[in-house]
């Protein structure tokens, strides 16, 4: 009898063993594929209702609690982990695989977490491990984007922790579930909202995902935002504010996607738009809405990772990432081109592809819940998605470019793209595969009605006609488009100026004052008997100076004063150098971690 374990631990253990085993060449690749397969088999043995509880500091931490929602998330997370690992098999750096496995493991940890503390712990591990998939690109822009990513996620994590603490203080240690109003809900919603890229907390996403490694961005496109959607489904389903935020995200993401030149930035804005559909369904809160939101999440994971695989392949082969530099790749990279067209039709919701099924569910749920504005917003976003992917495919694969040289990527990358494309078509043609695992089953929705199919075809045809006529307006341009991050960057620059100029000046003044006083005290302590005499002399000197500014005191005292002034000026002139403070700060943090670890050991030994 096989006894299952929380699937998160399989990936985390797999990641830990990777550098320890030191596998190379033909032994490493089977090991990398083996881990997601083991996790999948483990999932098959998980029964709804199972849970793993660990008592810690008087709290029952539920590391894993299995139900229909966590299971569907677990399945899709593990399947895409397999496909993304297959796509990245050629990567030789163990660090990238390690970061990816820890990231997948912690995401599974969030999905199966039964209490808020466990959820928060995995949430933070997810944020920390995912940033390495950006930094491993080893370029200046990636390093900077990674730091901005971390900063935003620290803000989100702090907000989430604040909400969790308020919730536990006011409601006790409850399982992860629907939240009532109040400050706890607001903070928790902000924490979840940052990961799901609520407008205007979304800026980290289009800023960092295009800067990831070719393979890292495939992982990134899947887990962070989708765990956020999952958390919203658990805690905020049926909230009108969430539903309308979904509508805003769907339209906002599309408008900005249409303005992009960088292929992966375009895809990143589409993540915002597609996540908008998911949370619109969840916000509607009906059985069809929640099922639609989760179905769209599953489908989106498939076609969005496929799109990142395709664009990653283009970057891997050509080294070019801008639409203005691409074109003519259809004949040179046929497999990538076909996969990209399938993914584009899937994300646009074309009949026969998986997006058609779930997008229809979400839009129908908005109509069913009598939300006309939401329905119109989602339809508008559908039009934009089609326009945007017509643009992406046209300028990457079909536009004229005689100078470009390329061929399809390595076999493992091609295999991953083919399998993912097959999944998109399979669900599109046979949606019962998906309906079978949705949380509220049985699903009463029939996607292939005549009016739905004809309606979508008409929408595509007319939008395509507009694209043909207005191609010049939608053609890509060099440059960037400012988003809300402009305000954040300005605000951060303001904070840096405040710290380095006025506050640092104040610090130097205080430092100078105390240095002077301490040195005076040290001088006085050498000969304490002379203190009254020196004090009288000093007071006399000061009085003279005050009464007669031009009067000169004893020569020795004047020199002393000059020296003090010079030292003070010298201190003031020291430029602020952040590197000077990294060492002591790092040491402080290291000591804190060591003490925390020792404390934990003592606690464990004692209990």
């Amino acid at each position, binding site marked *: 009898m096989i006894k299952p374990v929380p699937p998160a631990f399989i990936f985390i253990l797999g990641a830990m063993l990777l550098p320890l085993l030191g596998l190379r060449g033909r032994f490493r690749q089977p090991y990398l594929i083996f881990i997601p397969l083991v996790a999948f088999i483990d999932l098959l043995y998980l029964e709804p209702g199972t849970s793993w509880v660990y008592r810690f500091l008087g709290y029952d931490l539920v590391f894993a609690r299995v139900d229909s929602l966590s299971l569907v998330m677990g399945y899709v997370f593990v399947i895409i982990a397999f496909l993304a690992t297959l796509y990245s098999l050629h990567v030789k750096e163990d660090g990238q695989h390690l970061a990816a496995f820890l990231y997948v493991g912690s995401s599974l940890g969030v999905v199966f977490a039964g209490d808020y503390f466990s959820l928060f712990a995995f949430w933070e591990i997810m944020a920390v491990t995912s940033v390495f998939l950006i930094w491993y690109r080893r370029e200046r822009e990636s390093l900077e984007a990674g730091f901005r990513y971390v900063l935003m996620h620290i803000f989100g994590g702090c907000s989430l922790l604040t909400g969790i603490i308020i919730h536990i203080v006011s409601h006790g240690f409850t399982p992860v579930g629907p939240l009532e109003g109040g400050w706890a809900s607001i903070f928790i919603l902000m924490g979840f909202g940052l990961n799901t890229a609520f407008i205007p907390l979304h800026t980290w996403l289009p800023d960092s995902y295009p800067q990831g490694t070719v393979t890292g961005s495939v992982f990134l496109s899947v887990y962070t935002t989708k765990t956020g959607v999952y958390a919203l489904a658990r805690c905020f389903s049926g909230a009108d504010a969430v539903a309308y935020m979904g509508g805003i995200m769907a339209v906002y993401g599309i408008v900005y996607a*249409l*303005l992009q030149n960088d292929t992966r930035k375009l895809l990143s804005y589409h993540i915002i738009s597609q996540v908008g559909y998911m949370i619109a369904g969840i916000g509607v809160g009906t059985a069809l809405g929640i099922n639609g939101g989760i179905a769209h999440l599953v489908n989106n994971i498939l076609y969005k990772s496929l799109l990142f695989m395709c664009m990653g392949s283009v970057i891997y082969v050509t080294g070019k990432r801008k639409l203005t530099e691409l074109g003519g790749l259809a004949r040179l990279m046929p497999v990538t081109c076909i996969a990209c067209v399938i993914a584009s039709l899937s994300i646009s919701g074309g009949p026969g592809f998986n997006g058609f099924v779930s997008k229809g569910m979400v839009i129908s749920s908005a109509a069913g819940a009598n939300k006309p504005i939401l329905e119109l917003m989602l339809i508008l976003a559908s039009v934009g998605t089609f326009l945007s992917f017509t643009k992406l495919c046209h300028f990457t694969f079909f536009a004229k470019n005689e100078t470009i040289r390329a061929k399809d990527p390595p076999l493992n990358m091609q295999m991953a793209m083919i399998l993912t494309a097959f999944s998109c078509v399979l669900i599109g043609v046979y949606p019962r595969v998906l309906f079978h695992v949705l949380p509220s089953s049985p699903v009463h929705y029939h996607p292939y009605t005549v*009016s739905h199919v004809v309606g979508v075809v*008409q929408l595509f045809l007319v939008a395509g*006609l507009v694209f043909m006529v207005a191609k010049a*307006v939608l053609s890509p341009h060099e*440059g*960037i488009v400012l988003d809300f991050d402009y305000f954040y960057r300005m605000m951060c620059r303001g904070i840096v100026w405040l710290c380095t100029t006025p506050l640092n000046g104040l610090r130097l003044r205080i430092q100078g004052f105390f240095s002077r006083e301490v040195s005076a005290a040290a001088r006085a302590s050498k000969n304490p008997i002379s203190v009254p005499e020196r004090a009288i002399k000093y007071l006399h000197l000061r009085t003279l100076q005050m009464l007669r500014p031009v009067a000169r005191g004893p020569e020795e005292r004047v020199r002393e004063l000059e020296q003090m002034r010079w030292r003070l000026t010298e201190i003031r002139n020291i430029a602020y150098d952040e590197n000077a403070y990294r060492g002591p700060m790092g040491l402080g943090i290291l000591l804190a971690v060591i003490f925390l670890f020792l404390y934990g050991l003592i606690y464990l030994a004692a209990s």
Partner: protein
Amino acid sequence: MARHLRLLFLLVVVSSIPAGFFMEHEHAVFPWHTIPSMDAIFGGLGALLLILGVKIIGSFASREEDFYD
């Protein structure tokens, strides 16, 4: 060749419009669900609206590539 393809596409678009007059929305909730070929209208109007939005945002938010450097 490209010109012929464009004409063919235009023909397909135009011929698809009447299809909407021969069917009904299964779950009509809002008034626009009852208008024939409303999805075609959504496609055209939506695309124009988005192009307008893109032009407006692009006009004041576009910057050089090295703007933040």
